[in-house]
């Protein structure tokens, strides 16, 4: 296929490239290719096509935030001292002078006050971390809501989920490092969490802390985890994530000319490389502005960690809020058997529950294809409304997350609303169970209503907003058929469960299998797209109507009397004969 570039901005050059006398750049490329054989890879990938849609940018936010984290993180390591050795602060921040603190905290103060741009980089690092995790979460939602997790991309979904949980742990280890009062409170809570693990909890805790809490080992150990172990794994997983993306080629929305078997969009070089580069600078620039304008984690205000102190309103970073909320809502259940203690009140909400929920998220693509029986490859995205149960499931999970997250701020809500913290907590205990169910039902019905609306517009056209009165005196709204492209786009979807995948044979007794029953529920009440007959019938009907209204065509009674589209003066009046 040839591209008509005749009119593209002349700065792009108007003649096709041709072999010409070797240039210096050409010679360099030849030198490299003779050693690396890059041309074969380049031929395939330099003009690789990427489809365009704003929602495909969300994952990129996470990617570039990670790069910003690497850059700003390396800067911070030049001054940060991961040591719990104690010293008396004699630095430039007067309120803390003469106070005993760890070297870690003193070096965090040094970075904040004495290294020019140090505070900026600390804040850039912290903001980028929040953006990194937020970007991953929103990207995850986009992928799931549009069905981009289906075959052949299930493994990339698994990698993405691992990135999310590792990113979260990376965030926790990071904000624990400055050894200020707030971060120390977080570490102390972690000590309690680990101790709650049955049988091995105390051992793991003592090995982790190098003895009793707080000891003098936890900060250096978390530092190694934070700057080496997890970033290494993150880098490897991100590389795998991107490689699979390139191999599968990006999904695209259905539309005219867009099919399962092709990918329509702009080439990697020059468009995507430029846009991605531009977007990297944008993300870095935005985090730099945030670091300059929005104060974050002012460790000097919290003071050094002291195990006898705590501040009211102690909150973890936002992405740790939901397990903290679960911890707050859990009733104080603790069992004692044969001289041992089972701390359900801690173990269940912060160790078991996040693990279980994370596993569910990791397995979502496999659960879905088990239910639907869909074993086909998918490269066209689905609108969320066209998979009502899937969409409702994710909204229910989001609602559950939101309830836990709110519970993580129950003290702040109580203060702001002047409400009783006890009642807020009791209400949230119920809402954690009830709200996801309500959200599921509403979302599912909402999706089905939108599906029906799509069918309406397909069959009867879109609403023009023009009310016509017939000679008999009845009123009707004028509908016009959808443009060809939009109508086609609406009809690119499966019809019913049987088109997606096979159902189970009934069991010998004639009873349906569990999967079969779940599958029936999964598809229940889905509004299928119209059949060809329905479509033809509707079009026939529309022609009739058009015929009936033809008398009014070009007539003044086309509805424009009521807007400002009167073309000429002296035309016939609304009423009255002609």
């Amino acid at each position, binding site marked *: *296929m040839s*591209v008509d570039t005749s*009119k*593209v901005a*002349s700065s792009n050059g108007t003649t096709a490239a041709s072999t010409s006398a070797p240039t210096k750049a050409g010679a360099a490329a030849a030198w490299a290719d003779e050693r690396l054989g890059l041309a074969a890879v380049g031929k395939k990938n330099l003009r690789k096509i990427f489809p365009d849609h704003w929602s495909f940018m969300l994952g990129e936010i996470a990617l570039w935030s990670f790069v910003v984290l690497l850059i700003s993180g390396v800067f911070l390591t030049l001054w940060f001292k991961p040591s719990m050795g*104690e010293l008396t602060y004699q630095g*430039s921040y007067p309120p803390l002078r003469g106070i005993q603190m760890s070297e870690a905290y003193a070096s965090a103060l040094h970075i904040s006050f004495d290294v*020019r*741009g*140090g*505070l900026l980089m600390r804040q850039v690092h912290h903001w980028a971390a929040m953006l990194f995790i937020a970007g991953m979460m929103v990207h995850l939602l986009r992928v799931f809501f549009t069905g981009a997790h289906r075959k052949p991309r299930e493994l990339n979904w698994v990698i993405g989920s691992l990135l999310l949980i590792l990113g979260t742990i990376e965030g926790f280890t990071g904000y624990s490092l400055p050894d200020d009062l707030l971060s120390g409170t977080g570490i*102390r809570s972690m000590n309690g969490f680990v101790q*709650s693990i049955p049988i091995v*909890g*105390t051992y793991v805790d003592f*090995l*982790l802390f190098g*003895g009793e*809490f*707080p*000891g003098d*080992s936890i900060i250096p150990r978390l530092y190694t985890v934070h700057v080496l172990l997890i970033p290494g794994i993150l880098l490897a997983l991100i590389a795998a994530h991107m490689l699979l993306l390139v191999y599968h080629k990006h999904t695209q929305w259905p539309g*005219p*000319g867009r*099919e*399962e*078997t*092709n990918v*329509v969009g*702009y*080439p990697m070089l020059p468009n995507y490389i*430029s*846009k991605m580069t531009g977007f990297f*600078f*944008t993300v*870095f*620039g*935005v985090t*730099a502005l945030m*670091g*300059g*304008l929005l104060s974050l984690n002012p460790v000097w205000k919290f003071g050094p960690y002291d195990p*006898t102190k*705590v501040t*009211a309103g*102690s909150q973890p970073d936002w992405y740790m809020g939901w397990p903290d909320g679960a911890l*707050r809502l859990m009733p104080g*259940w603790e069992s*004692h058997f044969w001289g041992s*203690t089972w*701390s359900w009140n801690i173990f269940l*909400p912060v160790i078991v529950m996040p693990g279980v929920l994370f596993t569910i998220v990791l397995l979502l693509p496999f659960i879905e294809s088990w239910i639907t029986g869909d074993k086909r490859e998918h*490269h066209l995205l689905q609108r969320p409304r066209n998979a009502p149960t899937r969409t409702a499931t994710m909204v229910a999970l989001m609602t559950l997350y939101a309830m836990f997250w709110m519970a993580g701020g*129950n003290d702040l809500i109580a203060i702001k609303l002047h409400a009783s913290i*006890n009642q807020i*907590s009791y209400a949230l205990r119920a809402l954690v169970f009830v709200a996801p169910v309500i959200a599921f039902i509403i979302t599912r019905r909402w999706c089905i209503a939108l599906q029906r609306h799509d069918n309406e517009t397909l069959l009867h056209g879109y609403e023009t907003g023009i009310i016509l009165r017939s000679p008999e005196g009845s009123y009707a709204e004028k509908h016009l058929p959808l443009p060809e*492209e939009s109508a086609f786009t609406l009809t690119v*979807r499966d019809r019913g469960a049987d088109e997606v995948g096979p159902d189970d044979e009934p069991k010998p007794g004639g009873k349906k299998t569990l999967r079969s029953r779940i599958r029936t529920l999964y598809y229940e009440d889905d509004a299928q797209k*119209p059949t060809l007959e329905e*479509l033809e019938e509707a079009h026939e009907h529309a022609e009739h109507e058009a015929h009936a209204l033809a008398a009014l065509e070009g007539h003044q009674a086309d509805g424009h009397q009521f807007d400002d589209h009167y073309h000429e003066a002296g035309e016939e009046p609304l009423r009255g004969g002609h």
Partner: protein
Amino acid sequence: MSSDLTSPEAAHDGHELNAHTDALLPNPGLEEHHWRPTDVDPKAEKRAERQVATFFALSAICTVLFVLSYILVKGGPDGPVWLGWGASNLALGVTLGGALLFIGIGVIQWARKLMTDVELVEVRHPAASSESDRAATVAALKSALEESGIGRRPLLRNSLIGSIALLGVPAIVVLKDLGPTNHDVEQTQPYAGAGLEHTVWSRGMRVVRDVVGTPIRPSDLEIGDLVNAEPELIFGKRDGEEVDEDELLEGAPLQVAKSKAATVLLRMDPDDIVSDVTRNWSVEGIVAYSKICTHVGCPISLNERTTHHLLCPCHQSTFDLADAGKVIFGPAGRHLPQLPLGVDEDGFLVALSDYPEPVGPSYWERNTYSVEDVFKGWAKSNAQAAEEYGYKEGGQ
């Protein structure tokens, strides 16, 4: 081109893209491409070029300003303040942000306005390899297995698997020296109050104020007063005298001691005390409890004066100090341990013993008894000795 695209099996022997999300209507084909103003109007093109170059120039200006701010604007606590912001951080952040952002905007603008915007079509191939590739790979694997003899020599295979699996054991064993276990520190007592069962409190140790370390007389407290307290040893003293070097707590042992020994004192009307145990261990209505929450170990500090309730700011567990520290709200599973109080011959508050039960969060090996049983156990071994500091049942 469309006929080629819809029959990929031509290229891929039998492995085809099999999602047949069928459309009801015929595919109208790619939308017509529309020329942008910058494609057809040389003026618009020149204007776009100038815009992009302006963004790059703005970035360069910001970079220069960044370097100037770095040199000229003083940072730190005594640096200048602009509009409530620390000047150095503000200037560096805004100029760095501008320097990066303007490049980003410029490049994206270039891509959008001036680079070719014709959408291209690429054929998609199935993720799976072709049947022949698959067959060749399977054959290669088979002959490799064959040649290695791994299937034919179960003795070699199984002993190899066994010996590699056994290597997992040293991987775990070498973690042992990450730290002493609770059992180790309980046995060896490398510092005062080592292990989860103990704190540095001991019989006759003065209860002193947090931060300043001054001892407390019962008469120093009004009804309703809450005092954050520590054992005197934290401040390197015993009965007001400096302790010997070998008893002095420093570094990690000091932090460990603080993390377990922190205590709150509350003076209430003795008639408000509900629990007999609480009364037994009180002095003139003054009760002492562990400040370390039994949930996950935050120091508890929010006192509700009218109710004698103590609230943990981390997860809102609430304890009733008039009633043996029992949990009245929140996720904590156990009451707050109470420190038995007495008075020494100088009239200062002292502990009658260490905490009668482990303080802080629960752990697997922890045994749990009711408040009454804890008291009985304590009374059996401590009551007589504690009389030295004025202990008597029903409080002092």
